[in-house]
């Protein structure tokens, strides 16, 4: 059967990996090519790179990072951050990315999802969605979690899937960086979708992965800092999840 994916995420700024808490306060966490290689050796199922500056300059740096990683790492690579046009996507795919994640640009112009899916195929279009809880509903935020859109998450998911998103990367801003666990309430609410959901935000301990992969329908769990600072090694995590009965590739 299809296994659940463990996905390390590298936030990239000026060609280096950085990690913040609740989207702010950045610390240097190493060289992206070196980290990607280590994660690959530890049986990461996929690697996500997020360009958190997303300027024209950083986009060029990102293409170089992707090219260098793709020469050495032979697992799926997803790149996100500031992607706003078919040209951006084409350049990334031609540099060795397998999928691209779009976020703010999709909210500003939902038609972009349709266009990208038609040109490149749904399988390489990931829509990243950042959400925050307000009373009893989760609302979508853009621009690195700083701008409220007022859009309710389920209506947004319906739209992006209809337009051809092949996968959803859903980050809970409330739990991101907290290391207190994934937002189980959120992923339970989302239930069954036609496309895979990757859960993100809040990973701290092994049990957090076991909970989100075992108790909700998500296809994978993404984390950054717990892996960068070697609090959890991916291979140890995967072995333990396997022992707990989660379907895992080893």
């Amino acid at each position, binding site marked *: 059967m299809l296994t659940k994916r463990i996905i390390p995420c590298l936030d990239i700024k000026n060609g280096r990996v950085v990690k913040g808490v609740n989207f702010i306060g950045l610390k240097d966490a190493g060289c992206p090519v070196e980290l990607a290689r280590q994660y690959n050796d530890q049986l990461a199922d996929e690697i996500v790179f997020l360009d958190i500056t997303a300027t024209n300059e950083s986009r060029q740096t990102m293409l170089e990072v992707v090219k260098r990683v*793709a020469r050495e790492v032979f*697992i799926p690579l997803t790149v996100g951050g500031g992607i706003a046009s078919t040209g951006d996507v084409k350049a990334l795919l031609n540099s060795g990315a397998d999928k691209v994640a779009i976020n703010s640009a999709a909210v500003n112009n939902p038609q972009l999802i349709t266009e990208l899916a038609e040109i490149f195929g749904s399988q390489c279009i990931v829509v990243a969605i950042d959400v925050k809880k307000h009373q009893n509903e989760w609302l979508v935020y853009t621009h690195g979690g700083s701008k409220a859109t007022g859009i309710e998450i389920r209506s947004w998911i319906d739209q992006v899937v209809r337009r051809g998103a092949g*996968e959803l990367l859903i980050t809970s801003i409330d739990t991101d960086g907290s290391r207190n666990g994934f937002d189980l309430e959120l992923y339970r609410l989302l239930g069954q979708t036609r496309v895979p959901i990757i859960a993100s935000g809040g990973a701290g301990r092994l049990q957090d992965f076991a909970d989100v992969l075992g108790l909700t329908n998500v296809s994978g769990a993404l984390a950054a800092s717990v892996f960068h600072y070697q609090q959890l090694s991916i291979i140890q995590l995967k072995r333990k999840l396997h022992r707990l009965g989660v379907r895992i590739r080893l």
Partner: protein
Amino acid sequence: MIGIIDYGVGNVFSVRNALKKVHCNSIMIKKPRDFSKVKKIIMPGVGAFDDALNSLQQSNLYHSLIRVIEQGMPTLGICLGLQLLASSSEEGLAAGLGFIQQRVQKLNYQPHMPVPHMGWNKVEFNNSKIFDCKQGYYYFVHSFYLDIIESTTGVTAYSQRFSAAVEKENILGVQFHPEKSGVNGLKMLGRFGECI
């Protein structure tokens, strides 16, 4: 030298990188005469069924590709590349290359089984000449599949069981992406590329 068939659509960056990693040189096959430079061919897994076949017709590769495969050149079809070796597909109207007498079908959506089938899944091997293990995990991204047939040597289960690997004389077809399947995929590519 391994020739990678150019359908003019997707990018084959990762296939070429992976071949380089296992010390195999590759060139792109864009015209019929390029076949004289290579000893093995790879049909990569990018694009849609009809687009790839129409592109082969337009570049005049269609008939020469069929001829070199008939003459016994070792051929690896990856994902869509495997499907192109079949007679036809539910994905399109074009006629496939016809080396595998099957119609490629669409995966059915079922609860808990999103389509495309995307991610790492287990392949169980039987009577394979190229895979020396009983089972292993490989990376899949596809919405169409080939049924289990006599020449199937690898089977994977998703919403139904389907051919993950097919071996028939000089043809090897895999539904997964060896170039994205980590060590297992590199090993397979290395074995395919051996002795050239």
